[in-house]
């Protein structure tokens, strides 16, 4: 066992950390959030230049190495700064799905463009009734004259408004919740029949509700085998879930730090509120939550990079996301409460961090969902 960062990881951490500290302060972030696309094209180009967009890909795909620990290092810094650029949905999620399911032609056509910052992707997986079950898909795919016709609707398509292409899960056969019969298709965001309703999520990142009204795509738009997308989907989501945990760890640390700092400057009844023992012990508990959140996120990343059976790795990820859910609830709420009224306002970054972590709490499954998944995976082992 080894808990130290490699030299490359140390460099990555410093590089990302330097960027967010120097070029991503709260005001800058607010300006980006208010812009048309909700992210900075300039930053995106910079990420590509710095090679960050290659991190979640294997070397044979032209990537940096696809290590969950590398990703953790980056996501933590992104979380601290509440990064708006669609690294998670476009690269970690959709990009890795493409790498996992695409054939040589598809990968050659798209992955280099993605890694050089010239292509935006989005994954459309969730539906109104699916909750967090990746296999719960009603959107249908049926063959018609050599083409595939997609009909249905997706919700919470992260980066949907800005994506050039969508990776869409579709039911080809089997029951609504069946793992078999799930297909994956590449669809142009502007294709006829694709109706995008764009909005912002709590964390100010852009998302969309997308309807597919008899959208026709060629067979060559299929990713992977017919009806055989589920396994790769689940594994890619495990990686993305671990990345979300790391993002939350960074954000929770920021919430704790800002709360402690505020408590040392804010005076009430003639003394700093940080001198009230009742608040002190609650901040100690916030610190404990942050440390446990970090520890279990490290575990998930290390396990993902290990040789353990997939079931063990998935269980580790679910353990982490479940625990993060509880840590987010506690640290987030306490940060706002200890700040008092000012912590409720749009003016202070605390309220934005709180919204970010609340979104992360639900993304890819909340604490209850992942506790149940952990039990299922562990008992199967």
């Amino acid at each position, binding site marked *: 066992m080894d808990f130290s960062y490699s030299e490359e990881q140390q460099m990555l951490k410093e590089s990302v950390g330097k960027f967010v500290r120097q070029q991503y302060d709260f005001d800058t972030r607010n300006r980006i959030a208010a812009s048309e696309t909700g992210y900075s094209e300039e930053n995106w180009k910079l990420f590509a230049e710095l090679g960050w967009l290659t991190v979640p890909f294997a070397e044979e795909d032209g990537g940096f190495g696809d290590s969950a620990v590398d990703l953790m290092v980056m996501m933590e810094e992104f979380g601290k700064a509440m990064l708006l650029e669609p690294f998670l949905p476009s690269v970690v999620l959709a990009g890795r799905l493409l790498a996992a399911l695409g054939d040589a032609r598809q990968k050659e056509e798209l992955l280099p463009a993605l890694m050089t910052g010239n292509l935006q992707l989005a994954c459309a997986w*969730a539906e*109104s*009734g*699916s*909750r*967090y*079950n990746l296999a*719960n898909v009603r959107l249908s795919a049926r063959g018609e004259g050599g083409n595939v016709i997609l009909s249905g609707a997706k*919700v*919470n398509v992260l980066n949907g408004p800005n994506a050039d292409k969508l990776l869409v899960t579709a039911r080809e056969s089997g029951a*609504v*919740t069946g793992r078999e019969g799930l297909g994956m298709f590449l669809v142009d965001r502007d294709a006829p029949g694709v109706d995008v*309703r764009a*909005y*912002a*999520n*709590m964390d*100010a990142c852009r*998302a969309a*509700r997308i309807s597919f009204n008899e959208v026709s795509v060629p067979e060559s738009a299929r990713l992977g085998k017919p009806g055989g997308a589920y396994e790769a989907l689940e594994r890619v989501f495990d990686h993305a879930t671990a990345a979300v945990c790391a993002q939350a760890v960074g954000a929770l640390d920021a919430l704790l730090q800002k709360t402690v700092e505020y408590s040392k400057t*804010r*005076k*009430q*009844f*003639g003394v700093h509120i940080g001198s*009230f023992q*009742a*608040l002190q012990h609650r901040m100690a508990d916030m610190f404990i939550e942050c440390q446990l959140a970090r520890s279990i996120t490290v575990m998930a990343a290390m396990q993902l990079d290990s040789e353990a059976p997939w079931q063990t790795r998935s269980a580790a990820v679910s353990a982490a996301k479940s625990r993060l859910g509880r840590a987010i*609830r506690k640290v987030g*709420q306490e940060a*706002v*409460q200890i700040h*008092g*009224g000012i*912590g*409720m*306002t*749009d*003016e202070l970054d605390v*309220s934005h961090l*709180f*919204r970010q972590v*609340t*979104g992360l709490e*639900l*993304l890819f499954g*909340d604490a*209850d969902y992942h506790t*149940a998944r952990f039990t299922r995976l562990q008992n199967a082992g």
Partner: protein
Amino acid sequence: MNADFSPEDTAFRDEVRDFLQNEFPAEYRGKVDAGIRLSKDEIVHWQKILYEKGWAAPNWPVEHGGTGWSPTRKHIFAMEMGLIGAPEPVAFGMKMVAPVLMAYGSEEQRQRFLPDILQSNVWWCQGYSEPNSGSDLASLKTSAVRDGDHYVVNGAKTWNTYGQYADWIFCLVRTDTTVKKQEGISFLLIDMHSPGVSHKPIVLLDGHSEVNEIFFDEVRVPAENLIGEENKGWTYAKVLLTHERTNIALVPRSTRRLRALRRAAASLDDGQGGSMLEEPVFSHRLAELEIELKALEYAELRTLASLSVGKSPGPESSILKIVGTELAQRIDEMFLELGAYHSLPYLPEQFDEGFQGATLEPGGLAGQGLAYLNDRKLSIFGGSNEIQRNIICKAVLGL
């Protein structure tokens, strides 16, 4: 002890229920159910309907136009209002400045202000907190300096709920800076339309600005607007803070929301082939909240009952505030969880009057993600729950 309503009270409940079914406008009810905020005009219109019925001020004494109801009837009325989602009278006039006027105002002041409050002709807001005072209310700095027949007011107030609608504000102002902080405070009524009064909306977690900062720049206030004696304002405010905190436990609201939560859970998929209400862990937590609500409801009823035999509510209201707000927040959390991805969209405008688009969320979930965010205020405003715990320690436990 007896849990049953008397036949008279049962008849009263039926009367209230019928009245609300018939008179609370269906259009408003639809908006409340969909999470859309009522406009000022709509709220005022509804209050005038209550006024016509004689029910505008359940807690006022009869001589000022109140109902004279027993605690049981007040409870029944509040519960029925809450269950149907009808907005209560805006508290700042009806529940906050009015009792102070009755207790400490001059006869002239009462005649001048109370009827307009009762008839909802005038909208009040509260000027207590300041940007740097927080829970330490008595450290307030807004100054009122006597100049002939006027006070000249300078300073800023914050967390003014609905300040943008208000015609008048009741303020705590500093009239003596040379004495202990509690002893130099006066209670002053200020016309919001006076020159020098301005306000700035504060955007909160849910993207709305229901609260404001209010600025006073050389505002001249007639001395006749002073309540009681100069420098006695803290006493009046304190009495107000422990008295008249009816419905602080939010029991009717939480009852309505828990019922809505159960209905929504029954209609939503759990993603595995069943409904969320059949999901055992979710359903267990829901039951725990329903049980907590029963405990809270009886805690409130016991408090009301002890009031009716002449005791003061005192620190019991701190319990009701803490438990009531924390329960309301836990209900919000359950809605947040129930919504899953439907809880994420941040679209404050879809709950404004006049929003044209379709909401993103399925039935029962509209705005619940935002409600979770916004209701963090419940444990902060109105005397933070930390302050309430301090009150319990001091007043009950003698610590």
